[in-house]
């Protein structure tokens, strides 16, 4: 964490996708500062660069240019193993398409980050069970993702994101594949997490959901167009 309490500090971030034939500049110089405990909604039209931004925030991808400090540490020039550790300990991801491992149970999916984080087996089991109970899936620990509804899968994903107790939760259109009622369930869980003091960054198309955030950042065509507190 740096001096002014910001947990995320991006400046001049650019991302160019080079597919060989064409180059797409998805982000054209983004400056973004997020303080601890904020709940930020990132909105904008499809193709504007929201997912690209989130992948960079979560160290799933590396920027073409610009600097990024996460929790006060410069992420540029960090080794792949160190990036893996950052993803493991500092952030939790929730994706639009869940990205659960299909062949294993909810319980095992939630244990996965703790496995990579070196948490002892017993603690892993207990914590995974606790988290699943907290998101309302205490009776679904042995189900595989294919045996769950979309809303349930997303709740498994949230439990998994919380497994290593990260300071930041990153969610990319978490309700995008859900019906309205499961979507609002998920949003309530996020609100709860926010109240507990976690920092949340949520990408969404839904203006109603954006209203529940403390701050809305609007991305358009790879740049930040608008940034205001609710």
């Amino acid at each position: 964490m740096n001096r002014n309490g910001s947990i995320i500090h991006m400046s001049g971030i650019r991302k160019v996708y080079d597919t060989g034939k064409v180059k797409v500049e998805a982000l054209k110089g983004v400056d973004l500062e997020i303080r601890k405990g904020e709940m930020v909604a990132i909105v904008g039209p499809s193709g504007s660069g929201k997912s690209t931004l989130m992948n960079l925030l979560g160290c799933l991808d590396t920027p073409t240019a610009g600097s990024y400090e996460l929790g006060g540490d410069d992420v540029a020039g960090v080794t792949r193993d160190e990036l893996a550790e950052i993803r493991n300990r500092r952030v939790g991801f929730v994706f639009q398409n869940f990205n659960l491992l299909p062949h294993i149970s909810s319980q095992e999916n939630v244990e996965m980050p703790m496995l990579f984080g070196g948490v002892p087996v017993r603690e892993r089991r207990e914590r995974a069970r606790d988290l699943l109970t907290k998101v309302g899936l205490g009776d679904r620990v042995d189900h595989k993702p294919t045996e769950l509804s979309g809303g349930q899968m997303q709740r498994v994903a949230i439990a998994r994101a919380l497994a290593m107790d990260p300071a930041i939760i990153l969610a990319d259109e978490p309700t995008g594949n859900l019906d309205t009622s499961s979507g609002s369930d998920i949003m309530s869980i996020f609100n709860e997490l926010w109240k507990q003091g976690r920092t949340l960054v949520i990408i969404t198309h839904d203006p109603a959901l954006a209203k529940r955030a403390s701050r809305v950042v609007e991305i358009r065509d790879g740049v930040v167009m608008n940034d205001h507190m609710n």
Partner: protein
Amino acid sequence: MITIHDVLAQLLRDVRAEKLRTFLTIFGIVWGTVAISLMLAFGNGLHQHLIVQTAGLGDRIVIAWPGATSIPFQGLGKGRKLRMTDEDVAYIQAQVRELKGICGEYENNLRVEYNAKTISVDTAGVNDVYGSMRNQVPSPGGRFIDALDVRDQRRVAFLGDKLAADIFGTIDPVGKTILVNQSPFLVIGVLKKKAQDSNYNGPDNQKMFIPVTTYRALTGEKYIDDLIFQPPSAADTKKTIDAVRTALAHKLRFDPSDKEALAAWDTTDQFKFFDNFMLAFNTFLGIIGVLTLIVGGIGVSNIMNVVVEERTREIGIKMALGAKQRWILMQFLVETMLVTAIGGAFGFAISIGICSIFPKAAEEFVGHPEVSPAVALLTAAALGLVGLIAGYFPARDAARLDPVVAMKL
């Protein structure tokens, strides 16, 4: 902090998840191992069988007897009787370096007693090399005379199978003590039944063999009866016989062209056909073996390759959750090794099973097939290695991608 337990647990989950694919990989390795193990088992069995059937007298050997000179030499008249000692044999061995083996053989009737039985047995004093040169294959549980027996002048005896039956009946002679010219001798082996259509001094199944040193001490005999040697190959026999005769001529002073001074029986003629046949047969086996390995290798590597491609998304997810590259690769390595080990073990077991139910009646014609653990191990390892290489690089490539790229693939 990731433990072996974690790796194995993860592995079990993945294997459970992809039953068909795991089955196919294991099947590929089992198939290759069985095919190659059986092929070599039967090939070897047949080879041994043919040797026993056609080479009862010996394996490409020449048998030679010192005779009398027929040409005057350096003032010595013809008709001189020649006698050879061990020293002469050692001299030949030193002069004719290319010999694969040489043995001077002493031979006489000795008196053998066991329990109340006393019989006169045609006995040969020989060295350890004699065993392989003359194809004296022991029955299971016994052995032929070895170098230590010769060095230490041990009182041990190797019996022809018919002789053993005459003395011992149905009792296993190995480990029993007999009296030879009143000295106790330990029986160390019995000849495995072999076909022997020609002989000198009688067929091996009625003879007894003791270490050459022991023989000399027991009988006081100084002169050998005959000389057995093995040319480097069946094609060089004539040249080798001449070299041996020349060396002996130098030592015993006779004309090197005097064929009667050292009469030689070349038994290698029958091997010309045998060698050609075995060459063709082994070439055939080799080609089939290589083809099997190639086909098996392609199968296994294809499956491994597909697996990694299918799994790239999962690898991406795992990396997003904090898995390091070495975890991904370690899992892959352990998994491949385990699959290989299981496949190899099954393959080995199946091969042994097939050999054990192979009808005894058929063994009379094609010999006894015996699976070699080394062959099974090597085959499975080779296939596993192919799979490992085929899977390792795609796995490493996947683990090198940015997680987001891997997840989208």
